[in-house]
């Protein structure tokens, strides 16, 4: 098991930094995701960890040893590529043996390890197949097995599920996560899919424009986003305006206890997740903010509502379909005060 430490890592292709001085400490056996839109620097970071790209500045340490000048083949990494990159002219067995042959491991041990790893990825009996004779999911598992069979220091995955259909993708999420836990290997996973990052990772690194916007557990990222960009990238969010004044923040949902150090008179943005609130009938007798259902979208396990508030603002709400409201219904929105998360002042309103 290996601890990976990335220190002030920068990559500049000559048109401004693609990765701009990022630092991440990855604990032994940790599963960490680099999450962000395309062009945010997540793939470049992974390539630098792998050794396919030189770092312009900064250090990458495996267990304290700087590997920046170590070539790819000497870094002892296992990598899974987006398109699997299985060798088409080799059988599954030959694909798996490749890395072991490079390590000059004896034929007997190679055979033994291949049998073991094929069992692990549930592909026993597929050793003689060529990659083209396998389904997408099976190819994916061979790619994982090929990366793991060499028992590398770290496992790097570059959007490995992007080419699979939705159902298989969800299965593979669980499969990869379970496998990683069992093997206990330090893992860096690159994805632009927030659901993937959230369900699989111990911690998520959210990146925008070559910088880290936030590092945290999936619930940190979702419930306590560091800024508006993170809040909007990770799931749906309602941005509620509030005005700070004498110890409280006044919002359309009532007064909230002031959080953070904002001067009186500052207008701030608050994040409110669509499923964080409850919808109640107007005559339910409880407190709530009155709203009118503009439209609703039923998706089986959940219903999405677009609601108009009295002041004209729109709020998205997601609830279980136990109680259904029709378009045009008057409802009450009940939002617990602790579900509002301050995202900072609205520019130009700082008092």
């Amino acid at each position: 098991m290996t601890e990976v430490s990335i220190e002030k890592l920068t990559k500049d292709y000559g048109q401004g930094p693609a990765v701009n001085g990022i630092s991440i400490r990855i604990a032994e056996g940790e599963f960490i995701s680099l999450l962000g839109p395309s062009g945010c620097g997540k793939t470049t970071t992974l390539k630098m960890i792998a050794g396919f790209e030189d770092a312009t500045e900064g250090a990458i340490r495996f267990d304290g040893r700087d590997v920046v000048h170590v070539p790819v083949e000497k870094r002892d990494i296992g990598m899974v590529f987006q398109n699997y990159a299985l060798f088409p002219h080799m059988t599954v067995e030959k694909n798996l043996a490749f890395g072991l042959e490079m390590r000059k491991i004896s034929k007997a041990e190679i055979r033994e390890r291949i049998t073991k790893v094929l069992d692990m990825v549930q592909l026993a009996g597929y050793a003689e197949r060529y990659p083209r004779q396998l389904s997408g999911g099976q190819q994916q598992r061979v790619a994982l097995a090929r990366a793991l069979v060499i028992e590398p220091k770290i496992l790097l995955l570059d959007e490995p599920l992007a080419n699979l259909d939705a159902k298989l993708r969800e299965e593979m999420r669980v499969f990869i996560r379970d496998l990683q836990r069992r093997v206990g290997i330090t893992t860096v996973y690159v994805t632009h899919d927030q659901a993937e990052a959230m369900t699989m990772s111990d911690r998520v690194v959210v990146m925008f424009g070559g910088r880290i916007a936030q590092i945290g557990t999936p619930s940190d990222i979702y419930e306590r986003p560091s800024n508006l960009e993170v809040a909007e990238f990770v799931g749906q969010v309602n941005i509620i305006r509030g005005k700070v004044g004498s110890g409280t923040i006044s919002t359309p949902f009532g007064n909230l206890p002031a959080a953070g150090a904002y001067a009186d008179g500052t207008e701030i943005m608050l994040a409110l997740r669509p499923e964080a609130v409850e919808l109640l009938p107007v005559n339910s007798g409880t407190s709530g903010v009155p709203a009118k259902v503009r439209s609703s979208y039923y998706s089986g396990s959940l219903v999405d509502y677009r609601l108009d508030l009295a002041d004209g603002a729109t709020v998205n709400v997601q609830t279980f379909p136990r109680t259904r409201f029709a378009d045009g219904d008057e409802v009450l929105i009940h939002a617990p005060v602790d579900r509002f998360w301050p995202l900072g002042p609205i520019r130009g309103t700082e008092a």
Partner: protein
Amino acid sequence: MNVAAKKRFGPLLLIAPAAILIGVFLVLPYLNIVVMSFRMPGQGTPYGPGFTLVNYGKFFSDIFYIQQVANTLWIGFVTTLACLILGYPVAWQLARGNSAFRAMGYGLVLSPLLVGIVIRSYGWTILLGNNGLINRTLMGWGIIDGPLPLMYNALGIVIALVHVFLPFMILPIMSAIQGIDPSLEAAARSLGASKATAFRRITLPLSLPGIQAGSILVFVLSLSAYVTPSLIGGLRVKTMAVTVVDALIDTFQWPFGSALALMLSVTGAIVVVVFGRLTVMKWKA
């Protein structure tokens, strides 16, 4: 024509022009050569009455002709090998290099084809001759005392043929390499292979179909090349194609010339088929 008939004959009508062109101007003349090779030698006429094997007998009984076929095959082999060795790195660069180089490189690779073959061959005589640019330069620098024999021999022919046929080697290999996902090499590197090993174990075997296609093209073109061998080889070194033309045009021996042409075609075809079989087996292994 009703709809059913249109469906049936439509495709046939579309290929008819090409089929007629090839049939009349290629297949029929070839068949004529085959028939001609069994004719009696003529006296003042292209061929005599009746059929005979005497032309083939003349070929097999004269070591001169068999040697000439062997020479031609050898020149074809060396030309192909030289094109492969010189062409592969260029093909790789064209397939994987940066785009600025690619556009320019593509133009350079195709440039030999832009100049007529006669002009190009005369160009080589200017460079390769005893009084040519290369020999005069080398003698001028005092590197050699007398001119190197670069012309009127197999070496000169190979040099000129390599120049002409290099594009036919480069283009198929380039397209084969372009079809190889670069992430395969990256995967090999990540598994512990050096750049050289990744090339040898992954890129090279996967580009074999391109090597095969390019080699067959260059080999066949070399065997049938006429203008370049006749200008550069002169009277001293003759390839089969030159001898065939001599027999047909200079000495007017149509039946014997036809037999020579067929022997060249058959030996060439055998080499190509054997080579194809061998490389296909290698590809599967």
